[in-house]
């Protein structure tokens, strides 16, 4: 065999795999979802023994790590509630911290059972990513200003310099708002939120804008939080809801009903320390806690008394809210008629009734 021949063969051997790789790319692998392939996600979760939630570890109030190294927060509690309902153990969770850009791909791939990460539901996300359960927190973009500037409303921000983080819808909303009311707001854009807050703190900007929940979180980190106020109005709607992967309706229903349990427990005045274990006579309470009748536990594949486990270990919506977002957390007010109050016809005297937190009736 002569040298030329050797070269040709070597070249062919070298090139062939590449061509093969180049061609084989045409048939993408189907994203394998272990749960979907071998039965329901519920079975997979039970076999695995824990609920895997994609969440966050850096947003105060929603998902962060406390001084003992535990994942805590509003979003984490929603994950715990699902684990309590399905496995009877609120601690049987695994938190996968992900960044905002990974949210879509993570839930789409089906690698996690639940996405609870301050994610705003939207129609395209619903279509592409997965199914969104009930909105558990109504957020919206607002403004943090210095109290001594005496700004009564967002419409009085005329001519203000506003610090904003770049690459977020926040920036777009700010411009829309400024144009709509002809406020001539001067945006000062920063790559990192920390720099934007720092510039606001030192007076380079008159206001800082992001979602209300974020504003309260950052406000609580300022040296004297009381020198700053969050203006009451919002200029956008950001409904935050948990999402599950597409393709398993039973699992989607379970997550939705667990969210309802939290809301209804609050509406019926049941909290973690008065969970009934015997018939109370109030048929709604008895049905929720599996003491009488059914709201569909059998079809869903959860235990009759799942709500007892959920409320006892995680608490009702109000408890979850106050622990992480309210007075014990980052100080987000939850007044009677704010969006995040209950809308409820439940017969309790001190329940707020004018809000938007609501779940379908359990019957």
């Amino acid at each position: 065999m002569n040298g030329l021949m050797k070269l040709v063969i070597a070249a062919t051997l070298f090139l062939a795999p590449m061509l093969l790789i180049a061609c084989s790319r045409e048939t993408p692998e189907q994203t394998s979802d272990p749960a979907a392939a071998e039965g329901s996600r519920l079975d997979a979760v039970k076999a695995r023994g824990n609920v895997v939630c994609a969440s966050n570890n850096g947003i105060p109030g929603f998902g962060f790590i406390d001084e003992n190294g535990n994942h805590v927060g509003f979003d984490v509690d929603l994950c715990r509630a699902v684990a309590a309902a399905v496995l009877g153990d609120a601690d049987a969770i695994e938190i996968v911290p992900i960044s905002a850009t990974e949210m879509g791909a993570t839930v789409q791939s089906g690698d996690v059972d639940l996405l609870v990460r301050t994610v705003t539901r939207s129609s395209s996300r619903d279509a592409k990513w997965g199914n969104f359960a009930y909105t558990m927190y109504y957020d919206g973009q607002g403004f943090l200003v210095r109290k001594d500037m005496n700004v009564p409303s967002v419409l009085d921000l005329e001519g203000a310099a506003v610090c904003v983080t770049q690459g977020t819808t926040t920036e777009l909303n700010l411009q829309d708002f400024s144009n709509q009311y002809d406020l001539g707001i001067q945006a000062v854009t920063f790559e990192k939120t920390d720099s934007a807050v720092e510039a606001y703190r030192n007076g380079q900007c008159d206001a800082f804008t992001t979602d209300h929940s974020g504003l309260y979180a950052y406000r609580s980190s300022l040296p004297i939080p009381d020198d700053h106020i969050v203006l009451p109005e919002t200029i956008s709607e950001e409904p935050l809801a948990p999402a599950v992967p597409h393709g398993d309706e039973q699992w989607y229903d379970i997550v939705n009903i667990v969210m309802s349990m939290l809301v209804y427990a609050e509406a019926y005045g049941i909290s973690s320390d008065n969970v009934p274990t015997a018939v109370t006579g109030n048929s709604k309470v008895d049905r929720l806690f599996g003491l009488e009748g059914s709201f569909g536990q059998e079809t869903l594949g959860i235990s009759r008394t799942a709500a007892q486990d959920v409320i006892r270990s995680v608490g009702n919506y109000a408890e979850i809210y106050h622990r992480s977002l309210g007075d014990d957390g980052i100080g987000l007010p939850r007044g009677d008629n704010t969006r995040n109050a209950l809308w409820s016809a439940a017969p309790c005297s001190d329940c707020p009734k004018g809000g938007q937190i609501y779940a379908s009736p359990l019957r």
Partner: protein
Amino acid sequence: MATTPRALTYRGIPVWRHALIIRWVVQIVSALVAVTLVVWFFANIVGAIQERDIPAGFGFLSREYQTPIGEHFIPYESSDTFLYALLVAAINTVVVAILGVILATMLGVLIGVARLSGSWILSRLMLVYIEFFRNVPLLVQLLFWFFIVLTLPPVREGYVFFDRIYVNNAGISMPGPVGSSLASASAWLALAAVSVGLGVLVHRVLTWREDRTGRASYPLAAGITVAVACGAAAWLIVGSVVGEAPLVISSPEPYGRFGRIGGGFTIRAGLLILLIGLVIYTSAFVAEIVRAGIQSVGRGQTEASRALGLSGIDTLRHVTFPQALRVIIPPMISQYLNLTKNSSLGGAVGYTDLTNVAITMTQTAPAVSIFLLIMLAYLAMSLTWSLIGNLYNRHIRIVGG
């Protein structure tokens, strides 16, 4: 049995050892491999883009951008298109690059010369400056200057000099020329540029005459006179046509509830911080290049110059520096390229440079297309610096011989 003796006839170099053939085969095979790799790479990208439904294409360029751009040197409204917004952002980067290069060169040359000064203390101080700023990451320096500028008082408590100049942590505002209308201002600016061109032409012609005939022709004075006279004439003509002066001096003034400064000429904090950071960082490198350039000129040159009675400054100006320039220019150009590229860190300190705006754009337009465009924009800027450098290098090379 008789064996035929093996003929020792020479049949030429076998084909597989033929140098020419081997050379060609190697070339062809490596070309094939390179082409395959490139095709495979791009086919993969295009395939992945289609498969994952990632939006691409350039249709967005004519859409309205609808997003704020904090700093702009040409008029900008949020209803302008993406293409125009990219231009606004590119001009922001070009402004930083040009100002940065000029200031870094001036500061760097001063420091480089001072580094070689006979004064021990000055030389050591410059050494500390160079080593410090050269060896700390630029982003860290930028954030440092960011916090330094933030320690200035906020706008309502800021310093006011002469009732006209406002200094605070949002920037520096001072009286500046503002076009009374876009048309008249640009008309006069265009005519002023022509006037300067005329002045340069007159200077050239008179220099040539002076060189040829030896008669004193005062080229510089004549050139400046012509330029100023033409510029003033243009001012009067444009002014009388429009009915008001093409440019007026506008003074900054606080307005509104928040006391922000409007009018006049403002260098905003973002630009200020980015410029300070880039200039100080790059000047340290420039200083080293200048030092190396000066030291590359033989000691004999200096000695000869001093022996002829030239002062230290004159030696530097007329003997050492012109020769050092040939060594200095090529590495200097690469520093200019670095400065231009480093300006992409502007987002960290609140300056809307090209990269900063591009990142924001990916919210509402295909990221792949945008980044392809801004890569081309940076490439164009860098190639322009290289071109200028090469032309200048050719201008100062040793002629004759």
